[in-house]
């Protein structure tokens, strides 16, 4: 028999193996839910799939009696807008900061301590400051995401720039390049796929900050809805919402991965 360390499952087998624990989890839930519901048909803690289905169709396909909106979609739109604004602003800021602090020792000397300092402050601790400064509207939520993930991406990109072999920078100079040309033609293009990687990694934090900000002060959004529904113990809404957030996060990650593969094939071929 082969050693376990050398045993590679076939591609299809690997897929099935991956689905196995998910199915097991689902089965456990069904059994537990069934057991509780047979004791008390009005139990709210582990609702059956039929109840969740009703809740989904109520949230997604029937206008809310109070506002006339389709809540799932208006919540999703509000949350995604905040998340994407925050992440896009962070990515641009971090790209500029990471590029210059990584490539130019002078800029690094000036800005690197500041970035490190910001990275050390827990972003949620300054959420009250943001609410005081920017009010309870959209700005403070976007700013929380920006403050939360920009330092992480910046530091990652700075390290990535410093990892570019010194030989390449010397070579570019022997081809007659000055500093700006090296930044623009040698370092920046090599940084772009790494930016997308860093953004993918920081998306999880971005979601965390978004949900936290929405939970505290918002009138719509996925996080707001989940925390609102908590008051009614409405697990039949909360569970599908959580699954929906996970799906959105997965799709965003997939989208970024596909963009990166399409735009920078050299990066993924190593």
């Amino acid at each position: 028999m082969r050693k376990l360390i050398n045993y590679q499952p076939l591609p299809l087998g690997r897929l099935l193996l991956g689905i196995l624990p998910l199915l097991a989890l689902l089965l456990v839930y069904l059994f537990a839910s069934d057991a509780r519901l047979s004791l008390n048909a009005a139990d709210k803690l582990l609702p059956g799939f039929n109840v969740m289905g009703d809740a989904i169709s109520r949230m997604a396909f029937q206008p809310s009696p109070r506002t006339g909106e389709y809540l799932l979609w208006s919540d999703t739109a509000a949350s995604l807008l905040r998340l994407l604004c925050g992440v896009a602003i962070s990515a641009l800021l971090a790209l500029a900061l990471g590029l210059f602090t990584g490539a130019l020792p002078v800029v690094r000397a000036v800005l690197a301590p500041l970035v490190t300092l910001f990275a050390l402050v827990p972003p949620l601790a300054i959420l009250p400051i943001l609410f005081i400064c920017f009010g309870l509207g959209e700005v403070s939520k976007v700013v929380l995401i920006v403050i939360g993930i920009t330092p992480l991406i910046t530091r990652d990109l700075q390290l990535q720039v410093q990892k570019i072999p010194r030989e390449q920078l010397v070579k570019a100079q022997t081809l007659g390049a000055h500093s700006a040309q090296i930044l623009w033609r040698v370092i920046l293009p090599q940084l772009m796929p790494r930016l997308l990687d860093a953004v993918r990694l920081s998306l999880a934090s971005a979601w965390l900050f978004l949900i936290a900000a929405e939970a505290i002060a918002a009138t719509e959004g996925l996080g707001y809805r989940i925390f609102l529904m908590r008051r009614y113990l409405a697990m039949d809404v909360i569970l599908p919402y959580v699954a929906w957030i996970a799906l959105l996060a997965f799709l965003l990650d997939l989208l970024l991965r596909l963009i990166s593969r399409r735009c920078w094939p050299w990066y993924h071929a190593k």
Partner: protein
Amino acid sequence: MPLLQLKNLEKHYGQQVVLERLNIEVEEGEFVAIVGASGCGKTTFLNMLLGTEAPSKGQLLLDGEPIPDEPDAHRGVVFQRYSVFPHLTVLGNVMLGDEFSSARWLGRVWGKKRRAIRQRAQAMLAQVGLELAQNKYPHQLSGGMQQRLALAQALMKQPRILLLDEPFGALDPGIRSEMHQLITRLWQQHNLTIFMITHDLKEGFSLASRLLVFDKLRHDPHAPEAWGATITYDLPLDRAQPSEPQVA
């Protein structure tokens, strides 16, 4: 006037003397091979020629002027690795030098200018035998092809001096002899002045027109850092102005 003059050139790192008493003159068109034991300062010497390290004492003159203390387009270089840009295609790599010089800010050109640069780059790629690989990325090339690409890239700038830091050290023997023929041909066609570091004494003898051996002459067992290496042999080889490319 000789192209390059070294007058009592020395290099120290703190107390440690790495190179001392370097006195040679190199004429345009020479192919200088540099051999010596590991750690005797061959690469330090090359870095001084390149401008990434400054001499500690003495003078290093290019055309009678002190050599600039930053790398520039007068001195081309091919390292053992990492000489090409992974994010550009073969053609893009070779075009880059001309793009730098024709677009001051962006380092990128379009239209008629780009077509002219592309033609020149394609001609250069044909000289090193890479014309069929021009749309590939470096990671798709073998080690030998990557070094050909690095050579083509450097030659586009028509450097006064071409510096090679063990350029063929990582290649298979068969590929290496192909590269020897290529570098000999390029040396003659472009009338290059070449400095090549090599570990392979045979390679030095068969390729170069002049061989420099770096070694420590004096050694103090109580203070091993007190004396540095210098040029112990300066051998003119009979390939000074060969008319026929020789097979290495």
